Structures are given as structure tokens and as C-alpha cells.
């Protein structure tokens, strides 16, 4: 499903964020990515949907190498991956409904299907009553949930989430986790970078720990492994 071979990433300013990453993530897996701040977690996941291009190495998503992907094929690839960004990345001039609908408009869905699916996911993330609100009228947690709704609305085979519970109180965080559980049970691969020790330790899944741009630990049913 997702395979990285000897991936290196050096930012233009000289920061070496990834230093030789090798990983294989199978279809339907649920993977936590943990590690201290600045370890390279975000860079690691950004390479998967090509927000960042690795300096060296290859990344295969369902068999296609991202590094060799032509510019015009990138949009198609990105539609296969639902991304929940650390900074949400909602379109500021579009309301909640429109933000979520956008992911379906780009694949030219019919208005009928769009309406139905958007209301479905808004219901799922508990934001049906805020459909007409604009991002700057929402709390951090609500924006996060819009971002989640948008990432899952077109049923992508992979969901990548960068700290999806970062801005949420423990209760909401667990509600969000329930959503991830659900979509994972449907067969969706989930890769989730997180600092949430509670969640990692109680909902046990594969844990990949990154430090200084290298994978230092990779265990099934792993622990968070850091003190908070």
C-alpha cells in the first residue's frame, strides 16, 4: 500500500528532516507515528501525499512512485489520500458545507450525491448544525472536525492525519478516534501522527517512533513510549 525506500528530505534552509526512512504499511493497517516535536513526523506524512518532495529515495503508493509522478497526475493521486492537516487548511471563504463538498466537486460528482454524502459525514463528525458557518466562526476542535469530514467524504483508501486530536478536549478526541476506528474497520488505511499518549496506549495499534528523522522503533500493538 504505502512503501518508503531510503527516503531523505533536506529542506532548502538546510534542515535535514528525514534521514533514510524505510517503511512498509499494508492495506487496512492503523499506524501511529510518534516522536518528539521537530522529529520529522509531519515531514514524513507530507511526503506521502507529496506536499513535500523527498530529496532522495522512492515512495510507492499503491504501486506508483510519487517521486517519478508527473505534475499533472498528482491531483488524481491526492484524491486517493484523505489528509487531515495539522493546521486544518480549510478554505476561508467557503462555509463548512462547501469546504467538505469541495473534495467531491473536484471529482465531478453529481450535486445530488454531493449533498447526500456531505450531510452524511457532517452528521458523522457532529457538525450538521454548523453547515453554514465559516471557518473563522468555528473553534479549533470544530475546524479539525471539518477537516476530518473533508478527508473522508470521498472514501479514499488511505487517511493521513497529522495530530487530528491536537486541539481537542479528551472527550472530543475520543469521539474523533471512534470515527477513525470506524473508517479503519471499513478497510481504510490510517496513518496518524500524534502526541496523544492516552489514545496510543489504550487503543493499541502499530506504533512507529521517529527521532531526528530516523525510525527508532516500529512495533505492533506498541506503546507511546514518551513521557508527556
Amino acid at each position, binding site marked *: 500500500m504505502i512503501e518508503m525506500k531510503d527516503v531523505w528530505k533536506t529542506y532548502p534552509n538546510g534542515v535535514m528532516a528525514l534521514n533514510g526512512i524505510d517503511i512498509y504499511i499494508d492495506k487496512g493497517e492503523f499506524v501511529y507515528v510518534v516522536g518528539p516535536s521537530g522529529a520529522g513526523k509531519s515531514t514524513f506524512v507530507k511526503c506521502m*501525499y507529496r*506536499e513535500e518532495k523527498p530529496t532522495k529515495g522512492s515512495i510507492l503508493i499503491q504501486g506508483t512512485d510519487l517521486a517519478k509522478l508527473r505534475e*499533472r497526475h498528482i*491531483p*488524481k493521486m*491526492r*484524491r486517493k489520500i484523505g*489528509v487531515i*492537516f495539522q493546521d486544518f*487548511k*480549510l*478554505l*476561508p*471563504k467557503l462555509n463548512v458545507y462547501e469546504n467538505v463538498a*469541495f*473534495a467531491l*466537486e*473536484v*471529482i*465531478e460528482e*453529481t*450535486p445530488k450525491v454531493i449533498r447526500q454524502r456531505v450531510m452524511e459525514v457532517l452528521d458523522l463528525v457532529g457538525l450538521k448544525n454548523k453547515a453554514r458557518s465559516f471557518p473563522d466562526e468555528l473553534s479549533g476542535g470544530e475546524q479539525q472536525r471539518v477537516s476530518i469530514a*473533508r478527508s473522508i467524504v470521498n472514501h479514499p483508501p488511505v487517511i493521513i492525519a497529522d495530530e487530528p486530536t491536537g486541539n481537542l478536549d479528551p472527550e472530543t478526541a475520543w469521539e474523533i478516534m471512534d470515527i477513525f476506528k470506524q473508517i479503519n474497520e471499513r478497510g481504510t488505511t490510517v496513518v496518524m501522527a500524534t502526541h496523544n499518549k492516552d489514545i496510543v496506549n489504550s487503543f493499541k495499534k502499530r506504533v512507529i517512533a521517529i527521532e531526528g528523522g530516523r525510525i527508532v522503533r516500529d512495533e505492533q500493538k506498541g506503546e507511546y513510549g514518551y513521557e508527556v
Partner: protein
Amino acid sequence: MKSRTLKRHFAEAFKSLGRNGWMSFASVSAVTVTLLLVGVFLVVLLNLNHLASQIEGDVEIRAYIDRTTKQTEYNDLQQKMEQIPNVNEVKFQSKEDGLQELIKSLGDEGKAFSSLKNENPLPDAFIIKTKKPQDTSTVASEIEKYDHIKKVDYGQGTVERLFKVTGVARNVGLVLIVGLIFTAMFLISNTIKLTILSRRKEIEIMKLVGATNGFIRWPYFIEGFVLGLTGAVIPILVVVFGYEFLHGQVNNQLDTVFVKLLPVYPMVLQLSVMLAVIGGLIGIWGSMTSVRKFLKV
């Protein structure tokens, strides 16, 4: 692209125009101001050009003929003149007609010449009009070489100076209008660029969510076009109604003079189309050049 997607792009463009209210307003204002300048300037220039053409159009060559010339030679002469490539028409004016015209043009004083009717001192003449007024002097010197031609008269000296003046005026006008249009393009595209610059993040996000460049571009394309076209509305109204009013006022005053302003129609219609096209194109151009920069995510 599916038709419902095109519909979506139109809806998106108009939504965005509304939600970016102030930015849209700024862009439309920039277009309005510059097109107003272009429009007014064009009206002035076209009229000056028209004026120059009217004056130039009055230029004609008079070729006076020796009294000894026979009737058949007249015909030969006329034919020869008509065959000069740049000549438009050759008219014969008998000495009687010539005198009549002279008396008329002199008004009261002319009456003194009435007595000359019996011993008319004027020779017969051909009046030659060239296709382009600027060719007058070359055609004149050509005709001068012919036999039986006593004298050629076309206002030598004055006419050359007139053409020099109108020629320079036309070129200056052309340079000014081109300069003005470029300034307009620069100003408008800069304003539109600013509005889209503020949407750089928006475009990046769209790309990260899987939108193709074309998908992102369409609404901006429509938006730019609508902005430009909207900006042309006031200038068009000003040109149409302003000129109609001005035309009425000025032509009343100019009643006695031989020059006239350009008729209101079709000029204002042509100008309106031109302003609308310039507005629309500049709008599209401005938004497309700005979007292009951000599409490389």
C-alpha cells in the same frame, strides 16, 4: 469537463466575487478609472482624426489648360490623368463654370467680376482628386509634365505643411493611446493580482485536496472576466451619453463651419464594444497571470 462542473465554476466565481466584496470593488474601480480615461481619450482622438481627414479631403488639384488645346486633346488628357494609379476622379471644369464658382466664393465682391462674363480670363481646368490626400503633390508634379497644361495648383506649400501636421498628430495620438492602454493593463492587473495574492493559501489548499490546475483556474478566469466587464460599464455609459450630449452641443455651435464632429452612431457603439472587450480581456489576463504563479504546489 462536465457541464455541471462548468455550472459549478460559474456559481463559484460569482460567490467569490460577493464574498471578496472589497477586493472585487477595488478591481472594478481600477478598471473603471482606466477605461474611462481610454474612452474619453479615444473619443477626442477619433474626432481629431476625423477633423484632419475633413481638411485633408478638401485638398484637390487644379490643372489649367492652354487655350490652344483642341477638343480631342482634352479627352486624351482626361484619360491620361485618370490612368495615374493614385487618382480617384478627374472632373472637367469649363472656364464658365470656373468663373461662376469664383464669383460665388467671393460673395459681394464677386459681383464686380460679373462683367467679365463675356471676356472670361479664366482657362478651362481639370479638377483632380487623389485616392489618398497625401499623394496630392506627387500626382500634381506628374500632371505638370503633360503637354497643354498651363499651370497646376493645389495650394503648394500649405498642403505639404498640413499633411506634416496631421501626420505628426496622428502618430502622437497613436503613441498616447497605446501607452494609455499599457498603463491600464499594468494598473488593473496589479490590482487583480493583489486580490488573488491574498488567495494564495486558498489555491494551495485546493491543490492539496486534489484539484487540478484547470479546475482551480476556471472560476478565477470567470471572475477576472466579470470584474473587467463590470469595470467597463460606467466608461461605456459615459462615452455613449456623454458624447451624445457633447455632439448635440458642439455641432449646434459649429453649424456654420465646414467641419463637423463624428456622428454619434456608429462610433459610440464601436467604442462600447472596444471598451467591453479591453475590460474583459484585461480582467482575464490579470487574474490568469496571478493564478499561474501559485499553481506550482
